[in-house]
């Protein structure tokens, strides 16, 4: 079920009313309702893949229980190894099998050995990378004795499958989300209103910004060789807003929906395009994944301890793995590599933790220096996004080549149907800038104003959503990861 669908618009109020009016007296019943509704939400795509979530959940639930009674280090290692093998094994089969098969076959062909391996003809289950990482975090934390394993199966199933964030995050840590299932939730008017505002903003980002940018981006990238550098630049620029609007929009809807049910999910985006260096960008982009890799990969590898060389190695490892997490394609690996390379100067000069606060904090406009830094960082991300969006590495390099050719000076292809898009983007950027010190852009916008103005502003956003939405449901980009 998509957040931006009629199905969800019907589903959400029903679950909300059942949750607060029918199941509100009994915590277990509320959790059970979350499990059932989450499975309905997920099964809406393909009910057969529910078995994977249930399998993953049960494996980690029972491994967690076993870990709690097992003190022998070798047995504990075996148990966590089993959890890793099973979870990553499933992910590997569904997501990476064909990639490895193809690359092995190509590698052998270089030595004159022709292999004709059988590729798997399977569909990638929606959100498998997200819930696999979420359930793994539980097993690892229990193994590390950072949290007590749960004995409450319903709560655990609800934690793994919680529908607002099931298919595209934020990837929650068990230590944050699981305890919330043990506590009685009390309806909070302020939180619920805040949640609705966040859902509205998320829908605006997805439906108005991302989907409209996508129309242009698809035209340009599907036939990039016939477009000039200037058109490719606009296409890349729009893709930057598409991916941000799409993914952070999803996160906003997820966090907002969770608030309606009395849950607090972690922040996933913090205005990344206002970052002044690439390190800041990565502290503000897909925070739940970055911190996951930091805690479960970067730190175990030695993190920032050790000599400079090991720091550089660790940085490259997490960025490349992060790229590979996004998809089984060399384009994602290069995207990761490129980001690691951007990071390198900051790491070497030990300036990777300079910009910790949001840009121009407490001021209306940034300084010229900040503005240039923001623009430069954004330009770096643009180059990297080309690899993220391109079908293959050849296309990505060809696009970059064209961007640095004279055709960048030619008039871009820009049909009149897109003439409203720059204005929509301007509204979006201004609102994001104004609200950059909050959890989401419109969290406190107009909050000090009279109800009439506030409601008029929200009504205007609703109007823009309806006026500029696609007439067909468009899935979120991150569903494919």
């Amino acid at each position, binding site marked *: 079920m998509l957040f931006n669908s009629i199905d969800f618009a019907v589903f959400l109020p029903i679950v909300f009313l059942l949750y*607060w009016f029918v199941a509100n007296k009994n915590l277990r019943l509320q959790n059970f309702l979350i499990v059932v509704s989450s499975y309905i939400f997920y099964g809406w795509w393909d009910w057969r893949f529910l078995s994977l979530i249930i399998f993953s959940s049960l494996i980690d639930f029972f491994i967690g229980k076993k870990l709690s009674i097992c003190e022998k280090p070798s047995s504990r290692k075996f148990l966590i190894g089993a959890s890793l093998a099973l979870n990553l094994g499933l992910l590997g089969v569904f997501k990476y099998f064909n990639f490895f098969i193809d690359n092995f076959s190509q590698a052998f062909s270089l030595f004159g050995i022709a292999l004709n391996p059988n590729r798997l003809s399977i569909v990638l289950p929606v959100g498998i990378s997200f819930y696999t990482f979420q359930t793994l975090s539980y097993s690892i934390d229990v193994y590390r004795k950072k949290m007590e394993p749960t004995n409450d199966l319903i709560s655990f199933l609800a934690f793994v499958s919680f529908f607002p964030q099931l298919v595209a995050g934020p990837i929650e840590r068990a230590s944050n989300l699981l305890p919330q299932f043990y506590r009685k939730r009390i*309806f909070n*008017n302020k939180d*619920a*209103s805040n949640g*609705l505002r966040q859902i509205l903003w998320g829908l605006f980002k997805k439906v108005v910004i991302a989907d*409209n940018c996508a129309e242009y981006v698809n035209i340009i990238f599907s036939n990039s060789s016939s477009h000039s550098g200037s058109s490719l630049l606009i296409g890349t620029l729009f893709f930057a807003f598409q991916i941000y609007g799409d993914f952070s929009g999803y996160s906003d809807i997820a966090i907002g929906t969770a608030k309606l049910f009395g849950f607090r999910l972690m922040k996933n985006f913090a205005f990344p395009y206002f970052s002044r260096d690439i390190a800041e960008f990565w502290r503000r982009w897909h925070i739940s994944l970055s911190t996951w890799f930091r805690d479960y990969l970067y730190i175990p590898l030695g993190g920032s301890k050790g000599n400079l060389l090991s720091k550089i190695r660790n940085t490259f490892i997490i960025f490349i793995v992060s790229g590979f997490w996004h998809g089984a394609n060399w384009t994602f690996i290069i995207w990761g590599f490129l980001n690691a390379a951007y990071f390198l100067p900051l790491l070497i000069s030990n300036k990777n933790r300079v910009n910790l606060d949001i840009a121009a904090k407490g001021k209306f406009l940034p300084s010229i220096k900040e503005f240039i830094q923001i623009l430069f960082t954004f330009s770096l991300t643009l180059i990297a996004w080309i690899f993220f969006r391109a079908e293959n590495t050849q296309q990505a390099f060809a696009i970059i080549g064209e961007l640095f050719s004279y055709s960048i000076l030619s008039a871009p292809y820009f049909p*009149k*149907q897109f*003439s*409203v898009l720059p204005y929509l983007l301007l509204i979006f950027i201004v609102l994001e800038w104004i609200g950059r010190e909050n959890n989401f852009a419109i969290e406190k916008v107009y909050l000090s104003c009279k109800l009439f103005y506030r*409601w*008029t502003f*929200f*009504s*205007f956003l*609703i*109007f823009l959503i*309806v*006026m*500029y*939405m696609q*007439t067909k449901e468009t899935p979120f980009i991150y569903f494919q990861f």
Partner: protein
Amino acid sequence: MKVFLKKLFGFLMFSFVMYLAFIFLWGTFFDNRINKNMNFKIGSNGHLFSRLNEIKKYKNVDIVFVGSSHAYRSFDPRFFKEHGITTFNLGSSSQTPVQTKLLLNRYLNYLNPKLIVYEVYPPTFSSDGVESSLDLISNSDMNWDIIKMAIQTNHIKVYNTLAYSLVAKLFGLNNDFNENQKKGKDIYFSGGYVERDDTIKSTNYRFENTNWELNPTSLHIFEETISMLKFNSRNYILIQTPITKSLFDSHLNNKEIDNYFKRKGLYINFNREILLNDSTNFYDDHHMNKTGVAIFNKFFINKLHQLKLINTE
């Protein structure tokens, strides 16, 4: 919780009113290309505004034509007049069975024709009906039928255009509108006919072989209309007007389509009856030009006499 729900309800009511206000502002001040999900176009292609506006002048006609642009571009009332036949054309752009049903429900008793010529071009049976709905909403009077049609079409563009149309009518925004009878290469003639005196640009159209698709919902509504005509003892004939031979021949299931319509009443596919020249009698691959219409109309009127479908004595 109750406070929250009350407030939410209040907001939804407020935003509904504001939504209409924004729709009005957008529709009035912005170009249709900017209004992605709204397309209010009074006086649009096909002259539906003029057609529906002059309907009051016509009553108790001999023939009423319904159907797509093939209907309003294929029957020149001047040829019929020569034979003493009065006609009125209720065709509209991409008219699907939903709009045909609406127009017949609205005007059939008033026009009270001796014969209804229902033009059944297969693509209008697979169309989503949006274009035709927008045409009707923008150019006709508002009533419950229009709202019902919007719900049947179920498209955001149709809902927004309907909302704008209602607000615009409330403020009498288009009361003084007058449609130009000549638009580009199209000339409107009283009785609902739109003439184009042009020839085809490319003489060698090539189409890949394909099948006409008829969607079940459209067929269901079409059959309801046929039942209504039968129930009211109305004479009708189903026809396909000529399209270019190359386009017609590229469809592999013409026989099946003919068989379907034959089961629904008297049916003539004129693509099998008359041979027109693809390059001189059409202005595009499926619309006849002035010369094509002249040949076809003579043939058609003879056919009506042969079949004794019209008595002008």
